[in-house]
């Protein structure tokens, strides 16, 4: 059997992967196999290096690299490429088109099938909202926007009132 990738050298590695019932088969020579990260048993790469190489498009994709920042946290794809880390949960929607192929190559599948969180009690949601309002109020005070701060204070008190009821 010849290598299914280069079609020249004899295939010495036979690789079968089944993810969610979809089976892919590869028959590779040792040279082509070396190019496949998933065949390397000791995956001693750092996530940063991995994503760096993944996004190393060079001149081809300047538009993406200099593209818009995440609206919530300001991270750009360039930052992600450097560290391998996203900035906030919203980055997953801001950069969805760029992230999905990465996820597909790392995990093989991009549909979560595991547990779903109950996601906090009403109580914890309210507390989070209060925390967020407090942060906004602090910011307003720092900017000497006292009218806004007073409005936020009333909102906080109203939320705290709900808590007691």
């Amino acid at each position, binding site marked *: 059997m010849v290598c299914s990738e280069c079609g020249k050298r004899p295939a010495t590695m036979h*690789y*079968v*992967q089944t*993810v*969610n019932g979809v089976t892919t088969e590869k028959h590779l020579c040792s040279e082509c196999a070396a190019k496949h990260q*998933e*065949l*390397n*048993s*000791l*995956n*001693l790469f750092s*996530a940063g290096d*991995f*994503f760096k190489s993944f996004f190393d498009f060079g001149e081809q994709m300047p538009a993406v690299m200099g593209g818009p920042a995440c609206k*919530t*946290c300001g*991270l750009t794809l360039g930052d992600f490429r450097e*560290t*391998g*880390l*996203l*900035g*906030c*949960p*919203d980055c*997953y*929607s801001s950069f969805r088109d760029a*992230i999905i192929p*990465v*996820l597909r190559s*790392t*995990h*093989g*599948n*991009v*549909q*979560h*099938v*595991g*547990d*779903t*969180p*109950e*996601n*906090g*009690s009403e109580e*914890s*949601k309210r*507390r*989070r909202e209060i*925390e*967020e309002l407090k*942060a906004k109020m*602090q910011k307003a005070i720092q900017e000497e926007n006292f009218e806004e701060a007073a409005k936020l204070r009333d909102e906080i008190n109203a939320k705290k009132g709900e808590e007691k009821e």
Partner: protein
Amino acid sequence: MALWLKENALDSDVAISTRVRLARNLAGIPFPHRIAGTQRAEQVKETAKRAFLRDGMDFSYQEIRGLSPINKTRLVEQHIISRELASGNEGAMILSPDESICVMIGEEDHYRLQCLRSGYDVDTAMKMAFELDKMLNKEAEYAFDPELGYLTSCPTNVGTGMRVSVMLHLPGLTLSGGIRGILSALGNFGVTARGCYGEGSEAAGDIYQISNQVTLGVSEKDIAKNLKTVVSQIIKKEREARNALLHNQGAEVKDRIWRSYGLLKYAWKMDTSEALSCISLVNMGVGLGIIEANTSDELYGLMMDIMPGMLSGEGRTAQDRDVVRARMIRNTIH
């Protein structure tokens, strides 16, 4: 010795420990590396305190910046916190009294819920981790996406956010050379292995950590099932390799085990790598019934206790450490 190491753990002749880690983040708050030193970082800590520091629960809270360097090193070398958490100043942790449960706060993700078990015990470690998850979720609204699951700072953990690892002691497969074939086959099962001590691919003390690679598109149950299938096979192969070595090269193997025992018992100075390899062989001898010495959990504990960080006293040189290490070993081995 590490408090979480227990006597008579399951399959402790080969398996040192089982660990389950869940990565969780709060909705609407940037990941730790973007909020260091801000009020939002405090909010992340406060949420965990509310969830875990309640009446009737025996958890303790500790800021990383409040730990002494030697204590940080101990926690890392006993696998209780990650090197990454210990190296920063911003994080915190919540610990159970025996340190088998650790909530790492402000590491790569807001929370890493970790359960450690002695020996090979994936089911209990998972059950404990999901109990922690429930407790935290009562107070915290998680960052979650119906398509991508639990959202994490690094996309390699997205989905279930679950990493199951089993630390295995594989001297039989190492001596017989069978380890290579096994390691190269692991990738096919979505599982990775790495040497636990030592640089690069070298595995000092013949200790390997086997973990699931994929976290998205597979359920928690299937991740555990898959990993258990692989680990059970490796444990079986390791026992076969040890028995085959004893059967085919009995004198050679016994000689190496007894020589190692002699070194541990009488050497005056010893570096980490020699100590690890001698303890590894003695543990194999204990498992095979060739030698009567310490139990496996004591020997695994000793492996962690002799790491350089644990022995670094003030002004101590590497040579001083080797002397202290040898003395510690002489006093422990019986």
